[in-house]
């Protein structure tokens, strides 16, 4: 069986509606009404609880600021010591949410910078268990920050979905971002997350139809991760009229806060999002900065992004 060219002939299937976050599946029949029934039952349950839901927490923060900020780092890259210093700088400079990425050997949605960070973190021998312990320490140290796990589904699956989510909730994580799990395949993940008051973050992409956006938002919590453009993390996004129109379409599809990411790197990018989205997401830019200038450069960079 000789290895074949990876790109083969067009097979005539319509892939227009697929975005990077949804790359793992083609649109399957969607059990929309079943899910929304479950949704409303859970909403009643949650309203009886006193814990502030992530989306309410973000909304109240948003009332005080022009835009919120979510930053990201790969756990164990280059080391937990550096992670600790970077998080401290982020927290002290007013970051609202931090994505802690548990490294995976096949980070399909990530571009070269985050891909390399995943590989190097794994090469140091770090385990999922170490990530949980480190995250628990950070949540306790920086109560002003909402921490979320970002990882790929195999990590969750191997650990045991229920066990993973329960552990995440126990240490005080606010949500999980799993880009390769489409809602259609993640019913048990969505249900378990909601029961634990852990926000399962869903995605909008430029290829999502209005209908798809509504479906995806209906099963998500916390905020919607709006992928600003096609492709993988770390490439520059043109902040143009097309993006503003796309964000308006996102806004119309959901009441959840909109967090916009993929290629946001400067004060200018963040300023462009003010008024059009609720939260800017910075990923690759900070990793690059730490690589080049060390953890100490993160604080001033965050302050500059927020224009403070």
């Amino acid at each position, binding site marked *: 069986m000789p290895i074949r060219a990876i790109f083969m002939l067009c097979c005539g299937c319509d892939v227009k509606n697929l975005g990077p976050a949804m790359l793992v599946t083609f649109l399957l029949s969607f059990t929309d009404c079943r899910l929304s029934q479950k949704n409303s039952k859970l909403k009643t349950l949650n309203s009886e609880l006193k814990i502030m839901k992530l989306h309410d927490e973000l909304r109240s923060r948003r009332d005080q600021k022009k835009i919120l900020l979510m930053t990201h780092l790969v756990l164990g890259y280059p080391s937990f010591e550096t992670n600790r210093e970077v998080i401290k700088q982020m927290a002290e400079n007013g970051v609202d949410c931090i994505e802690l990425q548990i490294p995976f050997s096949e980070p399909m949605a990530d571009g070269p910078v985050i891909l390399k960070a995943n590989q190097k973190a794994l090469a140091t021998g770090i385990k999922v268990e170490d990530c949980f312990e480190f995250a628990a320490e950070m949540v306790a140290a920086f109560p002003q920050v909402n921490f979320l796990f970002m990882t790929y589904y195999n990590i969750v699956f*191997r650990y045991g979905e229920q066990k993973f989510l329960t552990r995440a909730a126990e240490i005080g994580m606010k949500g999980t971002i799993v880009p390769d799990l489409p809602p259609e395949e993640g019913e048990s993940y969505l249900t378990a997350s909601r029961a634990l008051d852990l926000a399962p973050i869903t995605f909008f992409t430029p290829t999502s139809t209005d209908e798809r956006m509504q479906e995806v938002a209906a099963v998500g919590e916390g905020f919607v991760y709006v992928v600003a453009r096609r492709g993988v993390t770390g490439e520059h996004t043109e902040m143009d009229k097309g993006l503003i129109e796309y964000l308006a379409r996102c806004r119309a599809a959901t009441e959840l806060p909109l967090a916009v990411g993929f290629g946001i790197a400067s004060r200018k990018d963040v300023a462009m999002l003010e008024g059009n989205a609720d939260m800017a997401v910075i990923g690759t830019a900070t990793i690059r900065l730490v690589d080049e200038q060390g953890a100490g450069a993160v604080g001033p960079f965050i302050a500059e992004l927020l224009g403070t």
Partner: protein
Amino acid sequence: MARQRPNVFWMEKLGATVVPVTDGSRTLKDAINEAFRDWVTSMDNTHYVLGTVCGPHPFPEMVAWFQSIIGTEAHKQILAQHGGMPARVYACVGGGSNAMGIFQGFLDESDVELIGVEAGGKGLDTDQHASRMVGDRAAAGVAQGYKTMFLQDDDGQMLDTHSIAAGLDYVGISPILSDLGEKGRVRFEAATDDEVLEALTLTMRTEGIIPALESSHAFVQAFKEAPSMSRDEAIIINMSGRGDKDIFTIAHAFDDPSWKEFIIARADSYR
């Protein structure tokens, strides 16, 4: 890419741009990751089809259907030549496209035993192989858009794989094949690199044909089992590829002195 140099040459001559993958273990799984990354960036003008029966729905079924021509033809030919069904059908299994192709011709023939042969590499007791269904290094997982048996560690990180045959050097296996394995419809075996070279030699000397290193895995298992079968039983071995493409790898494995001399002389003439 070095292991597939002749194929790369022909692909380029046919007009393709072949881009080497520089990340990860630089095997098939890494090429799949990179192709996905390219596709999510360029989906406006690009369609992506996996070359094997893996990946997200509907790729496994689509590619299985494309490949089913092998089984349809084999079914017809064995009827014509043997007058009945074969007792066993052997195919090598990396992702599983040639195996799915030929097996589909016989899935409904319950008396036909289907045997998939995986890459035993340097032995199942080492960490240098790519056997998912045989051996104990694989576990159920969800990656590259599908759920199947993956060679992975306790944390779910994919393991490095090894096979003398680049086409079998892959962490996952078609979800359709792992399902058929679980249900007992397909029996899985593994062949080591050494056994493969031995079977290849035998095939060349006795049949005058040169199977690819991948296909030679199927020959290994057939040669092991044929002596204990009856004379009237027919078997089919899927020779899914020709060994011409493997000339560098095979010559190197045999440590062939006259070939080496030739390569050195040719290299000198280019300097």
